């Protein structure tokens, strides 16, 4: 080998090796540590960078990132907000990887129920002392409580919305359902069961339209039971005495009712394989009268598809028909009061391996508040058809045009008034155990129940046994 070639090849080998080592060795504290370091130097209003991992919360949310970053720096000249976009599919995995590597972003958008998952790791950042009284006072008390776990405040809420069900107005009227009355007064399971029976349309042995289709596969696997159970006297996984609630007899009644709707032929027997996309497609193509879960923003999706049909736009959903989305409450089960499944998503604050300084904490709180209030929140809420939950965003929303129907708006407000209250008293350790029980036992058994491979009684016994194994006989409700 010639001397020159040897030298070049060796240099190349060393550069590659050094590259590998440095790529792995550097930056493992992520933006959080970098920001923390900047903040830890003390002395005055120093420059600081706050990182945020944000999914496409609403239609134009991610398109506005540059503008949001610029406006934040305009408001706080010494601070930089650095937003990393993520898809909904990647969001959890990306965040979990960063959290477990000890270098999460300062802020991540997620459901408030996920906070309990991160508290035992010590990686979420309590901003109770960093948030100013003005910030706290801006939020409605109800949604803000969802961001608490124990005494700690772990971010600010972006919106509070209801996960209910939704019907197609022409089909509801065709089936003789007084949907306006239902929106205001709700319905019991028996009333609902009869209504969805009327919604079924058959041609010979083939069902052309189901009365009710709820997504139960994929990412929605927890939704069905999670939403229904709140209306069966179990608004949370634990009762007020912190006993696991899903061992109650009402749970068995609910499971029985779930199976009855399939056996009636009102729901497809293949329900366990229907995912979110499929059931929305079934709604838009007229294959179901009522769909779940339903959110207020679906009215907008339905309207947009109608517009495409009118314009003969090829991007309209294939074989879709014009639909008129009506917000409906989930029926109540076992004679229990209806409790709406309220969801609070928000900007959760995280910390890295290094202890964050008080100054950096305050800066993160400022960034979280900036995203959760004022103009940013007003725009996001408007796109999602969800009511503002801060005074500042209500003010910013004045004059913004809403295309939500007055009936649906009133129905959502009514549902929010019956929403399950936040439960910050549930210890994170109990919450984590309940999540594991739900993932490992309840969801798989529910899939089997929907597929007709187990009975409600057997599933109830399986869940009860697993719950007693997890929480002890004294830690579960025995009625």
């Amino acid at each position, binding site marked *: 080998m010639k001397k020159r070639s040897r030298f070049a090849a060796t240099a190349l*080998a*060393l550069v*590659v090796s050094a590259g590998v080592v440095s790529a792995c060795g550097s930056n493992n504290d992520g933006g959080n540590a970098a920001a923390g370091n900047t903040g830890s130097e003390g002395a005055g209003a120093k420059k600081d960078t706050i990182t945020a991992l944000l999914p496409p919360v609403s239609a134009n949310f991610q398109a506005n990132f540059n503008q949001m970053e610029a406006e934040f720096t305009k408001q706080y000249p010494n601070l930089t907000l650095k937003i990393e976009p993520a898809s909904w599919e990647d969001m959890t995995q990306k965040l979990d990887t960063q*959290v477990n590597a000890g270098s999460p972003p300062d802020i991540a958008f997620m459901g408030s129920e996920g906070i309990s998952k991160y508290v035992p*790791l010590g990686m979420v950042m309590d901003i109770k002392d960093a948030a100013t009284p003005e910030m706290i006072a801006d939020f409605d008390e109800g949604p803000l409580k969802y961001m608490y776990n124990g005494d700690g405040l772990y971010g600010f809420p972006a919106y509070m919305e209801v996960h209910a069900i939704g019907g197609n107005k022409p089909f509801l009227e065709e089936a003789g359902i007084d949907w306006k009355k239902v929106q205001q007064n709700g319905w019991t399971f028996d009333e609902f069961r009869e209504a969805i029976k009327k919604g079924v349309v058959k041609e010979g042995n083939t069902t052309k339209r189901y009365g009710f289709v709820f997504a139960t*596969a994929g990412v929605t696997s927890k939704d069905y039971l999670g939403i229904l159970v709140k209306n069966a006297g179990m608004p949370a996984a634990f009762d007020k005495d912190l006993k696991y609630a899903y061992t109650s007899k009402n749970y068995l009644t609910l499971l029985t009712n779930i199976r009855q709707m399939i056996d009636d032929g009102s729901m*497809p027997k293949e329900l366990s*394989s229907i995912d979110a996309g*499929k059931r929305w497609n079934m709604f838009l193509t007229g294959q179901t009268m009522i769909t779940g879960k339903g959110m207020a923003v679906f009215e907008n999706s339905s309207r947009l598809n109608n517009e495409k049909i009118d314009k003969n736009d090829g991007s309209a959903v294939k074989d879709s028909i014009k639909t008129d989305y009506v917000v409906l409450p989930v029926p109540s089960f076992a004679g229990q009061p209806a409790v709406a499944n309220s969801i609070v998503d928000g900007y959760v604050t995280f910390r890295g391996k290094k202890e964050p300084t008080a100054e950096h904490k305050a800066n993160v709180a400022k960034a979280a508040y900036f995203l959760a209030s004022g103009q940013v929140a007003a725009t996001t809420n408007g796109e999602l058809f969800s009511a503002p939950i801060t005074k500042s965003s209500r003010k910013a929303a004045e004059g913004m045009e809403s295309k939500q129907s007055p009936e649906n708006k009133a129905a959502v407000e009514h549902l929010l008034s019956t929403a399950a209250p936040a439960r910050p008293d549930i210890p994170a350790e109990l919450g984590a155990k309940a999540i594991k029980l739900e993932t490992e036992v309840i969801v798989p058994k529910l899939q089997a129940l929907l597929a007709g491979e*187990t009975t409600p009684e057997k599933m109830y016994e399986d869940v009860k046994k697993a719950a007693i194994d997890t929480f002890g006989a004294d830690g579960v409700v025995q009625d």
Partner: protein
Amino acid sequence: MAREASTIKTKYRLNKGDGAWAYAFIAVALVVYAMFTAYPVVSAFIISFQDYKPLGSSYVGLDNYVSVFQSSLFWKSMGNTVLYTVLTVPVALMLSFGVAILIMPLKKWMQTSFKAIYYLPAVASGVALSVVWLWIFDPLQSGILNQLVGVFGISNQNWLGASATSMFSLVLMSWLSSHGTSIIIYVAALLGIDSSYYEAADIDGASFLQKMWHIVLPCLKPTTLFLLVTGVIGSFQVFQNAYLMTGGGPDHSTTMVGLLIFDTAFKYFEFGNAAAQSLVLALVIAVMAFIQFKFLGKDVEY
């Protein structure tokens, strides 16, 4: 003095010859191996004895291993993985071998075209392929596979949502995709068989099947063993199909060990437990590979 002179001479030789340069080049692969294979394995081994937390882990001894061995779900997922392996690997080998035999007599350009076509799924994204398969397995009557079975008067099946058909659906997916690599390896091995064997067999009046039995199969034994061992290893590590197609359901009927490890680590944040599960899986794979070499590799020469 003599030893000193010898040391200087050796050093001189090392610097003068290509040895030092060779070490420098090996260093690249070694560093990559150390960073991305050895380090994670050692880390997993250490973590398997810990209750892992990003802000400080604690030593828990053998608790994680005890938890793995006592977990009925772990053994169920191990059973599912073994079943999946038994149903997929031998069929994959037979299909690959059959296609390779069919391709062999073709002209060179035809061989290349078929090899490229069969290799295409390996190039395509697994996620994209899964989306297509989800479409095929649509549970309603309008689903592609349901329309096909409907021709035979069978009612629509809940392919991925029922325990009776979910594992079969994943196996079918495996049967009908990604044999490209094995086909290419088999074709290369078939081309490596000396034509004098076939000539001698022709002179002796051997039939096609006799040539297959007495020439092709023995000559391909090393290739088959290699594909069997790598196939079993790959099958034991299967994750993507179950994760994307069924999520392990219904009722854990398609939960494979790989998926269970993922869930344990990223859904429950029990990294110590997940590390223990993955090391037990590695041990099982090592034992399986050893058994295969022990019983099938006796008369194989490389």
